[in-house]
């Protein structure tokens, strides 16, 4: 199952995981049945789950431990990893501690992916929620048509879509032709490494060739503060557009399902009481959507930190490493450069980042929940 950006599958995973809380135990069978049947059931139970356990154990659990070992070794890709030497935390040290190419590459990939996450997660959530709200209107003609149109990219292959976007964002492509209508000369998207934030600062009068010394003098993980502040490159922006466009539909369906579970009477009651459209949305609809919003942001964060497909197909990290992401760097370091220990270490660093971000998000979104939903509604009614 693909768990990469934008493909359905991940949402399944989490949704189903959450549903384990639901009553799972079937009603207990009659007590008259003897231990013989129980025993037979036990054997059948194990028999039924064994293939799944073997496959998941071999190709999910075992790999994690194998990679943990490799990330602590100097394996070069030849022979058995078990024959490699234990080097302790050397690989992690080269990536995080010592200054050098490895550290600079990792820092660059983290920077690129961070901007990607910061832009894609809010944009796709807003787009999905907006489309769902408009589609959820009663007496809307062609509801099915629009829903299909928005959802279709989510089910198609990331490769096919990436290729189409390479064509659309080509220097003399569709996007630039449309920009021409508005008198804008579009950039050469996938060949343009300039950071958007730096371009913006340049437009505001900051000298980008000689950045302020307090920004260029300080370094973190081998990159100067000025480099950290570059913003996503123009090439990355095209990939961001692709991600938002593709995943919007999946999340829209989730919002739509949640919206349909809100009883119409609540909205009507609010309208009768004279609430404006915005008030109804803010105080009545949005609180009801909280669990879905939480799910969408969680899935968004997990998915965006793992972006690989689009990078692999469209840019391979180029131009000038500005579309390099940790996932792709991990792949490149292992398969192209043959530094398997470092590649595995990057994968674990990425794992840690995803866990940390999930925890932060959990904390932030739980914090706002302190006011019980019911009381919120009551306080609005009291006004």
């Amino acid at each position, binding site marked *: 199952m*693909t*768990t990469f950006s934008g*493909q*359905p599958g991940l*949402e*399944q*995973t*989490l949704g*189903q995981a959450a549903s384990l809380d*639901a*009553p*799972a135990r*079937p009603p207990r069978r009659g007590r008259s049945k003897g231990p013989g049947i129980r025993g037979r*059931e*036990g054997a*059948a*139970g194990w028999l039924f*789950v064994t*293939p*799944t*356990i073997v496959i998941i154990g*071999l190709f*999910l659990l*075992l790999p*994690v431990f194998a990679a943990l070992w490799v990330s602590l070794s100097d394996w070069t890709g030849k022979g058995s990893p078990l024959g490699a030497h234990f080097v302790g935390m050397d690989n992690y040290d080269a990536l995080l501690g010592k200054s050098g190419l490895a550290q600079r590459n990792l820092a660059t990939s983290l920077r690129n992916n961070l901007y990607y996450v910061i832009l894609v997660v809010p944009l796709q959530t807003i787009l999905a929620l907006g489309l769902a709200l*408009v*589609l959820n209107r*009663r007496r*809307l003609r062609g509801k099915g048509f629009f829903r*299909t149109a*928005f959802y*279709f*990219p989510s*089910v198609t292959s990331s*490769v*096919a879509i*990436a*290729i*189409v976007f390479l*064509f*659309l964002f*080509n220097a003399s*492509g*569709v996007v630039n032709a*449309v920009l021409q209508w508005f008198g804008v000369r579009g950039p050469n998207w996938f060949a343009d490494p300039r950071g958007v934030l730096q371009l913006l600062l340049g437009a505001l009068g900051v000298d980008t060739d000689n950045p302020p010394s307090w920004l260029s003098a300080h370094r973190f993980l081998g990159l100067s503060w000025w480099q950290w502040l570059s913003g996503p490159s123009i090439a990355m922006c095209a990939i961001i557009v692709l991600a938002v466009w593709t995943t919007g539909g*999946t999340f829209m*369906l*989730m919002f739509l*399902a949640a919206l349909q579970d809100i009883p119409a009477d609540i909205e009507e009651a609010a*309208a*009768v009481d004279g609430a404006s459209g915005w008030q109804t949305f803010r105080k009545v609809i949005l609180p009801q959507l909280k*669990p879905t919003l*939480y799910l969408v942001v969680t899935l968004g964060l997990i998915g965006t*930190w793992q972006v690989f497909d689009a990078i692999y*197909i*469209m840019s391979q990290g180029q131009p000038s490493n500005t579309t390099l992401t940790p996932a792709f760097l991990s792949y490149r370091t292992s*398969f192209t450069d043959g530094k398997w220990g470092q590649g595995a270490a990057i*994968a*674990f660093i990425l*794992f840690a980042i995803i866990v940390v971000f999930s925890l932060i998000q959990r904390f932030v979104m739980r914090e706002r929940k302190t006011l019980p939903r019911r009381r919120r509604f009551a306080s609005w009614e009291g006004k």
Partner: protein
Amino acid sequence: MTTTLAGRRSAGPTEALPAPLHTRRSRFGWLAYLVLIFFALIYIYPFLIQIGTSFKTEPDATGSPLNPIPGTWTLEAFRQLGQADFPRWFFNSVFVTFFVTIGRVFLDSLAGYALARLHFRGRTAISGALIAVMAVPGVVLLIPKYLVLVQLHMYNTYWALIVPLLSDAAGVFIMRQFFVNIPVEVEEAARIDGASIFKTFWSVVLPMARPAVITLTILSFQASWNELPHYIVAAQDPKLNTLTKGVATLASGSLGSGNQFPLKMAAALLMTIPVAVVFFVFQRYFVRGAGAGAVKG
């Protein structure tokens, strides 16, 4: 889903609503359509361009990118694809997808049934372990999966493409959730009649779970047809390229000279068609699959 909604909505006393509400609705009515049409254009136009460009000549494709209708129609792109490795990629994709889908539906149903209905020691532990496993991000497994495949001497074989995808935790839980909601009485009747556990599962329970089986079939088909990273790390022999991997190599322009845009668009189009057909035929199952998360959340 939609029908119940319509029923519920229309039941409301629409006539009795105060006037301002009505005017507000109609005032925003056309705006809603405008927004929807605008976005529909953004969502559909790329596909129109994809279809149109694949029938264009190369100068036409670069010359008038915005116009989806070819100046001169040509099948040159498809002819070129036919001569390249494309048919082989297509066959590989069909082959792998077929076995992955069958395997997944069967093994996921088996495990889902066991976790839902059969009492055995360690059931709770297994459920917990499967959920923990689902939390591991797929990208982290990329390199280690390669390591294991090499150690098992499966690397660079069809086995490597198929076997690791044969079962997935998410599918197990979809099936489990469905089996939990089927009444127990039917099974008990079958058991009293002396049917074995597998027979009960196979000929009584599974047919009742048809909607879930269809949903899982479609999700498995789509997931394995579109899979890319696993195929990248499972083999390097070009003979084992699936569509996703093969077309991805096309993207970097390994075939001849020039932009090759019609060729690339044609490849993208051909690999999209099977999924598109399944999607339009079984749309409601897709919607159910994607919605599963949100409804439970």
